[in-house]
């Protein structure tokens, strides 16, 4: 009488399945493409940058005496001299000053090689002065050429001598900058968000503020640089190039990020927690302080870390306040001239010597690692402490 119901897929259903498969393939394709770009970027950076993490060293007899303190170039033999980084010779008087026992002795030391030699041995450049090549080959035959970890990359400041250039001054500058950004944008941002979310009435005025804060997060960062230059440096007289000026400027950028994420975190705390607290006689502020804030804290911290990470990677506004500059010495306080990691990378990228290419890539790798660590902390915080309702 009636047709048996068939459980094999009908033509229409098969069509739906095909559409589903196409859609899935598109999504996977997009993911693969994105991953490919990422892998390409990282392999390129690592390929270019890894060689900056080690350096060529030359074993030589170093003579310390009154003459060599005066004329450091005499402290090593004539063959070795052209191969060794000039930074070493500059440091000879200081070595003796720090360690008087060295005076009138001869030490066998591994010395950082000149960038030309380093690049030649790493295969980055073909050309080397024939005389230097000859003495280098002699040294290699004697086993006096080796490789060591490039501690200078992390522990010395910027330098016009590529073999001596490092990230230390940029590290310190970044650290000071982070301190300033944190000290300013965290309390102001969190307090603003608490007021807007928990206390402010919902009217035209607060809505206008809200729209403005959201817009602020989307303002091109170079404009913040202009603002920082006009207000902090020209009007308030904050020293140019200082971590304080940079931190104040970047705080303007970080503030909206922190406000928005704090508001989101506060919004996620269910209303009945506030009502429960107020129903037992807590004031509005007590309810927020004792119950809402502790629950919102992981979200607030996550937002803050992301905001700070953004500030660390920012370069454009710093152009205008003079932080993209040649700063060989680490700043000693907030008002000293300072530079930061991305600015250091930018500076190196513009240098003509071949050695700076790998330094640039190495700087990028270090900055990226720092950002990955920060963002991973944010993710871990969120996953560990986030409460689901």
């Amino acid at each position, binding site marked *: 009488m009636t047709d048996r119901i068939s459980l094999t897929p009908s033509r229409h259903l098969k069509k739906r399945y095909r559409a589903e498969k196409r859609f899935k393939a598109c999504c996977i394709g997009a993911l693969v493409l994105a991953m490919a770009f990422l892998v390409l970027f990282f392999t390129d950076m690592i390929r270019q940058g890894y060689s900056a993490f080690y350096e060529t060293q030359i074993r030589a007899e170093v003579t310390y005496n009154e003459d060599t303190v005066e004329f450091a170039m005499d402290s090593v033999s004539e063959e070795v001299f052209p191969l060794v980084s000039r930074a070493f010779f500059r440091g000879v008087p200081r070595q003796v000053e720090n360690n008087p026992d060295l005076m009138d002795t001869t030490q066998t030391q591994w010395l950082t090689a000149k960038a030309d030699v380093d690049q030649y041995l790493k295969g980055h450049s073909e050309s080397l002065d024939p005389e230097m090549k000859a003495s280098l080959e002699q040294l290699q035959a004697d086993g006096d050429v080796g490789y060591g970890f490039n501690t200078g990359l992390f522990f010395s400041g910027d330098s016009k001598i590529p073999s001596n250039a490092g990230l230390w001054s940029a590290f310190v500058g970044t650290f000071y900058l982070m301190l300033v950004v944190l000290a300013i944008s965290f309390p102001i941002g969190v307090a603003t968000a608490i007021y807007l979310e928990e206390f402010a009435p919902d009217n035209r005025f607060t809505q206008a503020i809200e729209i403005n804060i959201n817009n602020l997060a989307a303002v091109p960062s170079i404009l913040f640089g202009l603002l920082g230059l006009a207000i902090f440096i020209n009007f308030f007289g904050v020293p140019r190039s200082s971590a304080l000026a940079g931190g104040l400027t970047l705080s303007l950028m970080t503030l909206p990020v922190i406000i928005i994420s704090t508001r989101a975190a506060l919004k996620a705390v269910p209303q009945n927690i506030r009502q429960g607290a*107020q129903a037992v*006689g*807590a004031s509005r502020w007590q309810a927020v302080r004792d119950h809402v804030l*502790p629950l919102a804290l992981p979200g607030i911290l996550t937002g803050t870390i992301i905001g700070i990470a953004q500030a660390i990677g920012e370069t454009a506004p710093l152009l205008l306040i003079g932080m993209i500059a040649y700063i060989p010495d680490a700043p000693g306080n907030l008002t000293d001239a300072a530079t930061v990691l991305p600015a250091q990378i930018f500076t190196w990228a513009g240098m003509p010597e071949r050695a700076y290419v790998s330094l640039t890539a190495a700087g990028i790798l270090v900055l990226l690692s720092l950002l990955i660590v920060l963002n991973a902390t944010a993710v871990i915080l969120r996953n560990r402490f986030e409460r689901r309702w």
Partner: protein
Amino acid sequence: MRTRDLTGDTAEVVRTPTTERSPVRQATKMQVNDLAVWYGETQALHGVSMDVLENEVTALIGPSGCGKSTFLRCLNRMNDLIQDVRIEGEVTFDGDNIYAPHVDVVELRAHIGMVFQKPNPFPKSIYENIAYAPKILGQVRKRTDMDELVEHSLKRAGLWDEVKDRLQAPGLTLSGGQQQRLCIARAIAVNPSVLLMDEPCSALDPVATATVEQLIDELKDNYTIVIVTHNLQQAARVAGYTAFFHLGEIVEFSDTDSLFTHPREKKTEDYITGRYG
């Protein structure tokens, strides 16, 4: 005009419960006079008047959206927290108008406790849940006194035996019924004189509901309780007096027995027999 007549009329009829139960008039704890509430443009309560008798359980029943929760939340000014709310009329607590300018809401809520529909323990330990309010209100200062108060409150709420070994465990690890009793314990810890309950059992299973109902019955000796419920049997079981709300007005208010057995109003009868709502 029509509304005014209607409210004036009903107000006269139901301002105090009609009762055949006891000739002795009990003391009035709270008195609501001509209470009207607007949420923005929408009027939720149309001039409601009602007496809440001391040491009694008063149940508020009625279909969804009839204004019973709004009414309840006016009794401890919880509605103040909502934006665009407009409240007119008078609510007295021991003779004082709680909407008078000199009244402080925080102070008021310490005297009129509230238990919510969904259990909402603080995300802190069981102990902290109880101790929080007495601490911020400055009622208890010494640690030993606090221990005693926590124990006493949990015992009153019938939760002590279940949690006495894990007072430091988070309140949210308890079951739904236990959480609700924790919220009741939390509310009575500050020793309020009135306890408002907004559908306290709607999220609980029958066993937990029975426990909470038994608790309400025990608490009424010391507290005046107003309870909103969708469960008519529950109203019949726990309440001495019941008010039937409909479209923002009180249709009928009398002692529970007569409301359920001989409703005077046709609407009430329709509602309790399930023909309406």
